[in-house]
Structure formats: structure tokens, C-alpha cells
């Protein structure tokens, strides 16, 4: 997206777009705009309210109704002056004290009725049709982009298609404090997995945050090649995300056993598909779980790569509160809505759980999948 690539090389959190945002954000409609003298603004509005009551059912609150001629996007000014030269042949005599205003959508009224209605306040009537965004923008960046591309657009700090912007920005304040630390830890687990040959260069850290204090409760590297034949595509159940979730579950069970005395649960050794035990030095550097958690309720998960569809849904099933990843996996990732798959699993109304999700974009290295094949399922 043009307005997203404008950021510099400094690392920053980019909230993911939901599927609804991606599907609806580029929808545009055609509206008639008209140039009128400044002093006719209120007359124009009352004429339009009579001609097209309630804007024909459209919500145009996110668009500026009146724009000074000089503030309109160049292509709108060009259309207006072209129309003017057609209606009044001869040398241009336009006055700078003019407004351009949105009359209504082309579906709500015919051009002829509009010209007739507006002839009392401007003569000749210079109407042309332009494209404007149908729905409200969901960020300042999007509003700025639309303002230059279509028509001056207002961002009102709301998002009907995803988490409320104030919730996202409050969460970002928390995460910005220490995201670098958790990503470094996830990188460490990834490098150990790669160096020992037990897995791909992928790592995950699960963090609990209570009263402003964040602690890692599980650290896992990928282990798809651990005790697994290289002729295959690797052990799918040993992806870093699934391993880390299992480590949290082990912690919850251990605490249950402490409370209940004797255990009635036997945890099988890692001989089948599960690789739940911490193995590498980095994987041991974690704090015990001390609260009464239900699954991974409201925990945070930091991933070196965008998780695959399986792991993304595992994050939803486990009731995480926040997920942050560093490198996008456009062909295989399950979280993004604007990748090749477009599943946007972090926030879909059909599912019974939604969470906040960010791409931690650190300038150069977020482009490309870095260290792993692009077709790999992280």
C-alpha cells in the first residue's frame, strides 16, 4: 500500500488489517461535485437536502462536504475546469473564491435534475462526476492517502471493521516498551533450532503481562526436523507456535498437580509427533506460570515469522490476547488479510475469539522471509 511504505527504517508496530477492512477499504462510489461561489454554500446545502433527502441513505460523514477550490485534489480541479470550458466556451474567467461541494451519488439523482435544481445559485452549473471512498477510513494514513487520491477525507478514530483504534494504541504503548527484547529472545530460539539442525530458523516467545510487568512463560524454536526423517516436509506438530503453546499447557498442568497433590495425568514422552519439552538453552530461560490461566487466555505471543494457517488458528483456539510477528509469510501466513491467502484469522466475526495483531516492521528485514523459504509454513 502506497501510504504504508512511506515509513522510514525505524522499527514500528503496524496493526494488521482485518479481512473486512481489506475487502471494503478500496470501495469507491461516483458522486457529482459542483463548483459554487463561497457565499452560496448554505443555499446549496438546503437545495441538496430537498433534492436528495438524507443523501439517499448514504453515510458521507467521512468526506468533507465543501472544499476550497485550491484545496481540492488536482484531478478534481482539472475535471471542473474542463466542464466549465465546455459549458462556457471562451477565455477562462474563474474566480478563486469558489467552493467545490459534493452534491450526491450518481445513483441518487440524475444529472439533469441536479443542474435544474442548482441553476438558481450558480450559472452556468459546472457538474462533474468523481470517485470518493464509500466507507470511513480506519487510520490517519489511510485518510491522508484518500485525501490526495480522491477527495478530502476525515479520520474519526473509529473502526467498524476491527478493534477500536484506542484499544490498539493503548496496547501498542505496552508492547513498544519491550517488543525488541522478546523478538531478540525469539531470534535466539530460532538460531539455536537452525544451528542444531532440529528445526527451521523460526522462534516464538509467549509473554504474560500483569500490572505493567512482562515476563516470558514459554520460549520455543522450531523442531520439525528433530527425530524426523528429512525425506518428508518435517513434523508439522513441532512448529514453534504449537510447541510454545504446549509448554504453557505443561505449566498449567504442573500447577494443577501441585494444588491437587498426586497427578492423574501422565505426560507421554516426546516420541510421537509432539515436541513439548524445552530442549535448547534459550528455551529454559522462562518464568513459571503463577496465575490461574485458562489455556493461553490474554497472553502475548511474539513470532519471528507470521504463523502458518494451522498455527494462526491454534493461537485463536488458545485465546491469546495479542500476537506480534516480524516477517510476513505472504504465501503461507494465516494472520494477514492482505497476503496471498487473505484469511486474517486474528479477527473474523465467524470465529468465537478475536485478538490484536501487529507486524513488527523493522524497515529492511521485514521484506522477504529472511532465513526460510517463502513457501515454508512457519
Amino acid at each position, binding site marked *: 500500500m502506497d501510504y504504508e511504505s512511506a515509513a522510514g527504517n525505524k522499527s514500528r508496530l503496524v496493526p494488521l488489517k482485518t479481512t473486512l477492512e481489506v475487502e471494503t477499504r478500496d470501495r469507491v462510489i461516483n458522486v457529482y461535485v459542483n463548483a459554487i461561489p463561497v457565499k452560496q454554500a448554505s443555499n446549496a446545502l438546503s437545495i441538496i437536502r430537498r433534492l436528495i433527502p438524507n443523501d439517499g441513505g448514504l453515510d458521507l460523514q467521512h468526506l468533507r462536504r465543501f472544499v476550497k477550490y485550491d484545496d481540492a485534489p488536482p484531478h478534481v480541479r482539472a475535471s471542473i475546469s474542463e466542464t466549465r470550458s465546455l459549458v462556457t466556451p471562451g477565455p477562462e474567467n474563474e474566480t478563486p473564491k469558489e467552493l467545490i461541494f459534493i452534491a450526491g451519488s450518481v445513483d441518487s439523482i440524475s444529472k439533469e435534475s441536479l443542474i435544474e435544481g442548482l441553476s438558481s445559485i450558480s450559472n452556468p452549473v459546472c457538474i462533474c462526476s468523481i470517485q470518493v471512498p464509500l466507507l470511513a477510513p480506519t487510520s490517519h494514513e489511510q485518510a491522508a492517502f484518500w485525501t490526495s487520491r480522491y477527495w478530502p477525507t476525515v479520520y474519526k478514530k473509529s473502526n467498524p471493521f476491527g478493534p477500536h483504534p484506542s484499544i490498539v494504541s493503548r496496547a501498542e504503548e505496552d508492547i513498544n516498551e519491550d517488543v525488541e527484547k522478546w523478538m531478540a529472545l525469539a531470534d535466539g530460539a530460532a538460531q539455536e533450532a537452525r544451528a542444531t539442525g532440529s528445526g527451521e530458523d523460526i522462534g516464538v516467545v509467549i509473554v504474560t503481562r500483569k500490572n505493567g510487568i512482562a515476563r516470558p512463560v514459554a520460549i520455543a524454536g522450531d523442531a520439525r526436523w528433530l527425530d524426523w526423517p528429512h525425506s518428508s516436509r518435517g513434523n*508439522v506438530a513441532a512448529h514453534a507456535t504449537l510447541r510454545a503453546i504446549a509448554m504453557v*499447557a505443561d505449566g498449567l*498442568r504442573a500447577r494443577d498437580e501441585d494444588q491437587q497433590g498426586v497427578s492423574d495425568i501422565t505426560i507421554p514422552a516426546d516420541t510421537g509427533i509432539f515436541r513439548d519439552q524445552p530442549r535448547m538453552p534459550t528455551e529454559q530461560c522462562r518464568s513459571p506460570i503463577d496465575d490461574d490461566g*485458562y489455556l493461553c487466555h490474554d497472553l502475548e505471543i511474539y513470532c519471528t515469522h507470521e504463523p502458518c494457517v*494451522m498455527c494462526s488458528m*491454534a493461537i485463536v483456539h488458545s*485465546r491469546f490476547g495479542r500476537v506480534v510477528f516480524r516477517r510476513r509469510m505472504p504465501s503461507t501466513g494465516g494472520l494477514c488479510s492482505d497476503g496471498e491467502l487473505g484469511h486474517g484469522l486474528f479477527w473474523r466475526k465467524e470465529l468465537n475469539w478475536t485478538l490484536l495483531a501487529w507486524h513488527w516492521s523493522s524497515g529492511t528485514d521485514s521484506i522477504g522471509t529472511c532465513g526460510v523459504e517463502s513457501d515454508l509454513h512457519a
Partner: protein
Amino acid sequence: MGDDSPLTSKSPPPPSTPPPVSIPKSASQCMTPSEISTHVQFMREALSMADLALQTSETPVGCVFVHRGRIIGRGMNATNRTRNGTRHAEFLALDEIMRARDGKKPRYAPETLRECDLYVTVEPCIMCASLLRQVGIRKVFFGAANEKFGGTGGVLSIHVGNGRKAGDGVEGVEVEGGEEWERWHRDDYEVSGGWLREEAIVLLRRFYVQENDRAPEPRSKKDRVLKLEVEPMGEEGKMGDGSAS
């Protein structure tokens, strides 16, 4: 499953056979009676795993993996017991398969799964549908559709092209069988839903009238009434309950 697990020590009572058996409409048109009875038989095995899950306070979803006409792995939901929301029946069954040993040697190679069919009582969720895709399953037979989490048609269709939406002109470029098409579709698998769906749904309803005391703020289910009649199947076995599978 270890030798001391309840799975081997206590076999569940054989489910009674209330005729007529519910099978997908398409099956009755294009399968022989003997093929149908084979699929029904394997689905009964999956149902008995689901029943076992119910007896141990787990969401009653069960499955079996079949290789060359023989069951090589069984699984049931274990999310409560393990405190792990990802321990669905399919994972447990795969674990059993890869755990099997002949002496010290693994009995099955990962490639064996490419020749396996799965019978599962509820449509696989999005997570499991992706798991099955990544291990290369051949075909999936399921009982009840899963409108809340289903990954093989319920919510997404992971079994076809990893659920990628067609359109945006990509279909025109990707000639079927071409390189780009192959990249997206080489792990596709067939899916057939609606096998013994009534039995699967009744098991789920039995579970939902029990208390799930591990969920946050348990809600009283005393007023819930167990409903045993199941509405007739829609297109291919839709059901409203939805569940972890």
C-alpha cells in the same frame, strides 16, 4: 495412547444401529452398498472414540486414520485433560501413528499419511484442516459440519488451494495443471461430509448439557434440555452446535 490408557483397557459398548443410517446424498448415488457400509463402519469407530471423550469430560469428537483398509490410529479430543486448546482428535491420532514401533524402528514413515483417509465425527476445524493439508492426507470423511470453526467448508475451505479466495483474475492465469496451479493445489484433498451426522450431533448435545467447569465463569446448564431429535440435513450436513474438531 499408552497401554494403561482407558482406550485399551475398556472398550466402549458397540453402538446400536438405528436404521436408516444417515449418509451424504451424493454417496447413495455414486457408491456401491459395500463401499458405503465400509465408510459407515469406520465412522462408527470414530464415533466410539467420541463417546469415550464424552465419558472423560472432553468435547466428544473422535477420529480414526485408515491405511489400506485398516485403522492405524485413533484419537479423541483432549483439550481439557491436557489444558491445551490445540489437542484435537486429529493430533492425538497422528501422535499414536507416529509413536507405533516395530522393535525400535518407527512402524510408519510420514509418507504413509499420504495414503491415509481420515474419518472424523465433526468437520475438522481450520487448524486441523491445515494440519491435514500439511501432512498430505488423501481424503476426509466427516459427520457433522462445523459452522463455527470448520476448515473444510464450514468457515474456510483449506482443503482446496489452502483456502485462498479465487477471483481477482488469478484463475485465468493459473491454467489447471500448470505450474502456478500445482503450487497451490498439490496438497488438496477430497472431503465428504454427512456420514452418521445425527449420532455425532447427539454426542455433542450430551456434552453441552454437562458443566464445563474449566471454562472461565461457568454458566449453569441445569435448565438445558437434552434434545435428541436432529433436524434433517441441509445441503451436506450442516449443524448449529459447532465444536472443537
